[in-house]
C-alpha cells in the first residue's frame, strides 16, 4: 500500500506540474496569445467584465498582480472547474465542449487500448513459447515493420481502401447520423460498427509494440529456473505458459503500458482527424488551428490528468500483480 501512496504522491506532483506548465506556457511564449484572444473577443463586441477577468487570469495580461497572485487565482479557477471560455465556440465554456466530446474518445481509446494490449500480449506469449518456429519468424518480422508505422498513413489507407473503395466499413462519423443517439440498439450497433475501423487501425499500429515487448520479456522469463522447474514438475504446457512464465513476464509490459498511455492518448488526435471521428483529440486540433487557446489548454490539461489517472490505475494493477511490490520490500 505504501507503494501506491508513494505513486499517488508522484502523480499529484505530475498533475501539479502539468497545471504549472499550463500556467506558464502562455506566459513564456513569445507574443501574447491573450492579446489575440482579447482582440478576437472584442471584434465580436464588448467583452463582459467576468470573461475579461477570466482571460486576464488565464493569460496573465492587463494585470499588475504579481505572478504568484495570478497563479493562485488560476489554481482557484481550476479548482472550481473553470477552464475558461472557448473563443471558437463562444459563448460556450471549455468545460462544456470537453464534456460533450470526451465520451467518444474515452470509449474508443479504452476499447482499442485494452484490446491491443491483450492481443499483443497474447501473441507475444504464444510467439515466445514457440520461438524459432515459422509462426514466430513471420509474426516477428511483420510486427517489426508495423512497430514503427506512421499511424495517419495506415489510417488513411484503411479509410480509402476498406472504407471508401471496398465500402466494408464507414469511414467517417461516430455513428450513422440518421439515427437518434441514445440507449437504443440501433444507435449502439451503429456506434460499434463505426468504431471498428478506427479501433482496428489503432490496434494494428500499437499491437506490435506490446507483442514485441511481451515476446522479449517472455523469452527472458522462459529461461528462468522457475519455469524450468514448472516444466520439470510435469505441469501442462498452458499452465506453465500462463501461470509461471506469462504471469511474471507481463510485469515489465504493465509498466510499459503505463508509460505508453500518454502516447496513445496523443494518438487519439490522429484517429479522430483521419476518421472524422468525434472526440477530444480533434477538438484539440481544431482549437490549435483556430488559436482557441483556452480550449487547447483545457484539453491538454485534461489529457494530462487522464493520463495520470490511467497511470494510477495501471499502478494499482501492477501492485496487485506483483506480490513483491504489494508487500513492500523491507530493508
Amino acid at each position, binding site marked *: 500500500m505504501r507503494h501506491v501512496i508513494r505513486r499517488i504522491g508522484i502523480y499529484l506532483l505530475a498533475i501539479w506540474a502539468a497545471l504549472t506548465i499550463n500556467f506558464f506556457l502562455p506566459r513564456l511564449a513569445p507574443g501574447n496569445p491573450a492579446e489575440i484572444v482579447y482582440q478576437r473577443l472584442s471584434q465580436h463586441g464588448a467583452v463582459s467584465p467576468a470573461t475579461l477577468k477570466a482571460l486576464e487570469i488565464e493569460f496573465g495580461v492587463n494585470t499588475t498582480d504579481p505572478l504568484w497572485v495570478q497563479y493562485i487565482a488560476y489554481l482557484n479557477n481550476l479548482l472550481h472547474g473553470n477552464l475558461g471560455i472557448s473563443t471558437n465556440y463562444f459563448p460556450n465554456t471549455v468545460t462544456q465542449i470537453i464534456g460533450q466530446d470526451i465520451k467518444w474518445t474515452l470509449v474508443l481509446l479504452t476499447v482499442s487500448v485494452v484490446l491491443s494490449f491483450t492481443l499483443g500480449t497474447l501473441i507475444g506469449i504464444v510467439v515466445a513459447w514457440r520461438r524459432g518456429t515459422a509462426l514466430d519468424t513471420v509474426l516477428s518480422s511483420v510486427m517489426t515493420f508495423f512497430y514503427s508505422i506512421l499511424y495517419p498513413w495506415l489510417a488513411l489507407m484503411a479509410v480509402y481502401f476498406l472504407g471508401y473503395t471496398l465500402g466494408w466499413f464507414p469511414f467517417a462519423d461516430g455513428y450513422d447520423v440518421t439515427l437518434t443517439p441514445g440507449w437504443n440498439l440501433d444507435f449502439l450497433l451503429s456506434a460499434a460498427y463505426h468504431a471498428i475501423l478506427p479501433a482496428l487501425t489503432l490496434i494494428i499500429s500499437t499491437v506490435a509494440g506490446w507483442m514485441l515487448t511481451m515476446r522479449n520479456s517472455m523469452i527472458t522469463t522462459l529461461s528462468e*529456473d*522457475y519455469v524450468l522447474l514448472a516444466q*520439470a514438475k510435469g*505441469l501442462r504446457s498452458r499452465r506453465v505458459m500462463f501461470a509461471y512464465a506469462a504471469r*511474471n513476464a507481463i510485469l515489465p509490459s504493465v509498466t510499459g503500458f503505463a508509460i505508453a498511455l500518454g502516447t496513445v492518448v496523443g494518438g487519439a488526435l490522429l484517429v479522430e482527424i483521419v476518421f472524422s471521428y468525434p472526440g477530444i483529440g480533434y477538438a484539440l486540433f481544431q482549437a490549435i488551428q483556430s488559436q482557441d487557446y483556452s480550449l487547447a489548454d483545457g484539453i491538454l490539461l485534461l489529457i494530462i490528468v487522464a493520463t495520470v489517472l490511467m497511470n494510477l490505475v495501471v499502478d494499482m494493477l501492477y501492485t496487485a500483480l506483483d506480490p513483491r511490490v504489494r*508487500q513492500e*520490500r523491507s530493508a
Partner: protein
Amino acid sequence: MTRRPILDVKHLCVDYLAEDGVVHAVDDVSLTLRRGEILGLAGESGSGKSTMAYAITRLLRPPAEITGGEVLYDGRARANGEMTPSVGPVDILRLKPAQLRAVRWSEIAIVFQSAMNALNPTMTVGTQVLDVLATHRPEMPKPERNARARALFEMVGIAAERLKSYPHELSGGMRQRATIAIALALSPELIIMDEPTTALDVVVQREILTELMRLRERLDLSIIFITHDLSLLLEIADTVAIMYAGRVVESTSAHALHRQPRHPYSFGMLHSFPSLRGEQRLMTGIPGSPPDLRAVPAGCAFHPRCPLVYAPCSQVVPALMTMPTDSAAITDSGEQSVACHRYDPARSEGKPLPTATEMEDGYATLSSAFQEAGKA
C-alpha cells in the same frame, strides 16, 4: 549389498551449438544409481555436471541438445499402469511428451541450486505445491491436497502457515526447504539435486543436509547430488563420480575415493580443501585452470595440469575403466573406475600404478614449475 539400479545412464552425450561450432558439454558419460543410494556428482565449472542433471530430466533447452546415449529408468511397477505396464527399465530420452509428463515429478523430481530463482515469485509457495498435486493427482479431493501440502511443509521443517507466503517473504534456507517439499510432493523415487545448498551459509546448509538425510532414510529416496564441494560429498554420498571437461574421470564409492583417490585430478581435488584438523602444511592444489570447453586439450583433457602426464595422455582420450581386480584388496567397497592411461595396462607403458606419494610430489613439482614460469 548391491541393490538394483534405479537409474542407468549410458554413454550420454550433450552438445551445445555455439556460434563457432559444437561444444561437447557432456561427452560419453555413463553412471549408475542404485536404489536408495546417493550418487554424488562432483566437478568444477564447465565440467558438465549440471548439464547432466538437465539431460537426465530432459530439461535441456536449445542450444543444448542430447546427441546420444540412453537414460534408463527403472521405477517401481505402477499398479494403475500409468506409466508403463512393464517392470523393465524405460529410456527417458525416448518417452513421448505425455509419458514424459507422467514420469516427471511423480517419479523423478529435481531441486535447483537457487531456490529464489526456482520458485515463481508471483505465486505463493503453497500454490506451487498444490500445482503438482492438482496436475498429477486430479482424483485427490481438494482438502486432501491441502492436507498433503501442510504435511510436506512440516516434513521439511517449515511451519504450515508458510504455505501462504510468497517466495520473497521466506529466508534462503526456508526457500530451499520449500523446493525440497515440492520435490517430495508426489513421493518420487528419484530426486536430482543440483547444488541444492551451495548458495546457503554453512550452518543452514548443514541443517538442510541433516534433514535431507533423515528424509532419505524415511522415504527410501534415491538421490543424485551434484556439487563442486567434494568434501561435502564424501560425507553424504554413497558413490561419487568426478567429472572433468564433460567426462567422468573417476567413479567409485565415497569411502574408496576418500581413502585412495585414483585419478590424479580426484587426488588433486581432494587435496585442495584445507583441513580443519591435523597438521598444518602447505598444500599445492592443482596448477592451471579448468579448460575452456570450446578448446578442450587433445587426448586426456586434464593432461596439461596432470603431474603424471606422459606421451599417450596428449593423444588418446582415456576410457573409464574398472580397476584391475588385483587391486581389489585396496578397494574394499564396490568397484572403482578411473579414466587414466596409467591404470590401463594396455597403455601404462610399463609404469607402475600411481601412488599417493608420486602424485603429491608430482603436484609439488608441477606447481613450482608453474611458479617458476610465473617468476620468469
